């Protein structure tokens, strides 16, 4: 994992002191709130419904156990004893006090962390596949490039006052676990016909009120040209992106207005001018950073571990957890373990300080001290020996972190919604809690199979509802909370935007409506191997519409 050298450490210290000064100037009235706002946002500090919220960056999702313990310490000392992992591999604290924030940042800097550019109209914390360095089919480790982009984008003098926020994600396999094409730039590490490794640029994706799947703007950019091509893309956007209407200010709108070809042409023109400049990446720097991401000292283990196979058979609960919550590892005898932050009836992504400490201990004992945050608001222990899984599972179970539901219907993405957010139309978290209670039987979960259910409290789509197999969107109907359902979205390599099912449901009806959607799917699927999304794509929306609104009517008349 990357470690700060003297330059990085000095920089983050200086940034912390700069922010301390900004807070002092704000409290002294030297800065107006209007002037302070973008400054605090660039340091991850939002003003929410009830209090400030501090969003801390976890660049490309990677944490060590020491950092995890520090996050627990902050949750305990400065918050109400918990933190919230988000869809952008960040962690949020919902209750810090403004005058504590400089000290929190100082604590973070002590463990090589920060809150730089987790918000504001700048290049945001870069995200990556949570199986980086683990997946067997990976072209090259995306974390190396995540770190290069982190440094390039940090306090970029030219791109700190963009028309709107700017999100970059990275993957390196054909499987997309990072919602690549919902980003302003999705970078896929690829090999070209000559066998060279470089980047495919998917530019101009996004969610929000205008969901757009990022088009391929350039199929191959050499590694040494990554920064110059990024610079050229951002320069075209900074000069030509709209600034008259915040709903039309994202790069996706510019790319659509010009067309991806014309946009690509303008970037190319700019890029050809600068590609042989100081932005060319020297191999020595790439090698320096790559060295930090060398494999840990894996043991030579058999791929097949008879005891483990027996444990799965003898303990059905353990077997279910292994099936849902572990991924294959490129090294024989190891697995990647997802720790579900979606226990039944809890707020998705929330974790207590005590649980964080346990995760840190388990990372030390079982996973070379490494933890990852995933974009679906869970945590991951990337390198666990199969022979340790049973013990690990028991330890997780003891602290309620062993819900066997990864990739299943109760592995819900939900935004903060009306419980915290001042833009919300409706609550998200209680809807997620109700649905997870309704589908709490692990056998039923497993029977339903792979399903991505995402909830946003308003059209800003922080909860990725457009790209959930099932999406739920909070809408306001004359002051009441209502929920619109979309079906058929996906954020994976088969990306698609969901289609609206029909009129929105009340808070009391939404869980029943979801259950009818599920029952309809079970009735229609060819067999248990046909996923919800595949059945939907085969039969279309009509059968779902009929069943859901039909049964709603029945329930209504039965109630009368």
């Amino acid at each position, binding site marked *: 994992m990357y470690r700060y*050298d003297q330059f990085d450490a000095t*920089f983050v210290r200086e940034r912390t002191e*700069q922010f301390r000064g900004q807070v002092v100037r704000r409290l002294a009235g030297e800065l107006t709130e209007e002037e302070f706002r973008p400054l605090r946002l660039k340091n991850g500090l939002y003003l929410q419904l009830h209090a400030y919220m501090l969003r801390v960056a976890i660049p490309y999702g990677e944490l060590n156990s020491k950092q995890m313990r520090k996050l627990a310490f902050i949750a305990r000392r400065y918050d109400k004893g918990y933190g919230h992992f988000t869809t952008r591999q960040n962690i949020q604290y919902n209750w810090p006090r403004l005058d504590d924030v400089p000290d929190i940042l100082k604590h973070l800097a002590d463990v090589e962390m920060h809150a730089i550019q987790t918000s504001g109209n700048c290049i945001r914390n870069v995200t990556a596949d949570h199986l980086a360095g683990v997946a067997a089919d990976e072209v090259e480790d995306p974390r190396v490039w995540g770190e290069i982009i982190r440094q390039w984008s940090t306090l970029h003098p*030219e791109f700190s*006052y963009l028309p709107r926020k700017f999100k970059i994600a990275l993957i390196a396999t054909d499987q997309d676990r990072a919602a690549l094409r919902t980003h302003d730039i999705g970078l896929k590490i690829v090999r070209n016909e000559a066998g060279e490794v470089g980047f495919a640029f998917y530019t101009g994706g996004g969610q929000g009120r205008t969901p757009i799947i990022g088009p391929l703007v350039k199929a191959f950019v050499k590694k040494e040209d990554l920064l110059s091509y990024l610079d050229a893309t951002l320069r075209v956007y*900074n000069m030509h992106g709209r600034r008259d209407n915040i709903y039309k200010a994202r790069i996706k709108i510019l790319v659509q207005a010009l067309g991806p070809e014309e946009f690509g042409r303008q970037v190319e023109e700019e890029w050809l001018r600068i590609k042989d400049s100081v932005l060319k990446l*020297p191999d020595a720097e790439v090698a320096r950073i790559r060295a930090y991401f060398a494999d840990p000292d894996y043991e030579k283990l058999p791929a097949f571990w008879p005891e483990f196979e027996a444990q799965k058979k003898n303990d059905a609960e353990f077997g279910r957890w292994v099936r849902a919550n572990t991924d294959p590892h490129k090294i024989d005898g190891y697995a990647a373990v997802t720790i579900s932050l979606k226990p039944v009836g809890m707020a998705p992504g929330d974790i207590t300080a005590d649980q964080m400490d346990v995760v840190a201990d388990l990372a030390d004992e079982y996973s070379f001290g490494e933890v990852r945050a995933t974009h679906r608001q869970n945590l991951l222990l990337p390198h666990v020996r199969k022979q340790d899984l049973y013990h690990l599972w028991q330890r997780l179970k003891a602290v309620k972190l062993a819900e066997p539901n990864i990739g299943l219907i109760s592995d819900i993405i939900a935004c903060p919604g009306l419980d915290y957010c001042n833009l919300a139309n409706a609550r998200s978290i209680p809807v997620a809690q109700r649905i997870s209670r309704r589908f709490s039987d692990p056998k039923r979960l497993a029977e339903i199979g792979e399903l991505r259910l995402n909830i946003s409290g308003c059209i800003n789509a922080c909860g990725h509802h457009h790209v959930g197999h099932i999406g739920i969107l909070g809408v306001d109907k004359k002051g009441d909370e209502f929920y619109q359902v979309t079906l058929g979205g996906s954020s994976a390599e088969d990306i698609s935007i969901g289609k609206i099912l029909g009129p929105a449901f009340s808070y009391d009806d939404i869980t029943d409506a979801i259950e009818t959607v599920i029952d309809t799917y079970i009735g229609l699927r060819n067999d248990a191997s046909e996923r919800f999304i595949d059945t939907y794509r085969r039969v279309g929306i009509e059968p779902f519409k009929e069943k859901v609104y039909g049964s709603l009517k029945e329930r209504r008349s039965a109630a009368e």
Partner: protein
Amino acid sequence: MVVLKNGVPQPNEWVRVADDATLPEGAKVIVSLERWQAERETLRQRNAAVGVSLKSDQSPLLVKDDLDHLSLVALEFPKFTDGRAFSYARVLRDRLGYRGEIRAFGQVLRDQYLFMLRCGIDTIEPPAEKRVEGYAEALKEFSVFYQPTNDHRETALRLRHGLAESVAA
């Protein structure tokens, strides 16, 4: 009014002239793009220097053929959140090779000042109500820079690999 150069207040030698005002004899003047375009020939004949002022939706590419005759280009920050002029400054310096003075005016705040210098802006006109000492303080906040621009501050990358021309203090 003072202007700031490297954080230090200097007397302002330039006079901003409205489109319908007569040009003060012998003074260095800043005119709008519109006036420059309309009166280019006469302005070029002047004995004193001429600068042009660009609004935030006016790209410096509009004056790319005129730069030899312009001693100053002023870039507007109508709101401090409008960051177009950062790119305009870089286009002027890096793409068009402009060597004259680049000046920022409008809502130019202390917390953006270092970014401005790094993008190639030489002087700024700080808003009257702001404490000018703050701008000099802002330049001391960082000693580490990640992005190579043409402002001669060495980047972390070059220092790491011994590529720096002289190790910056």
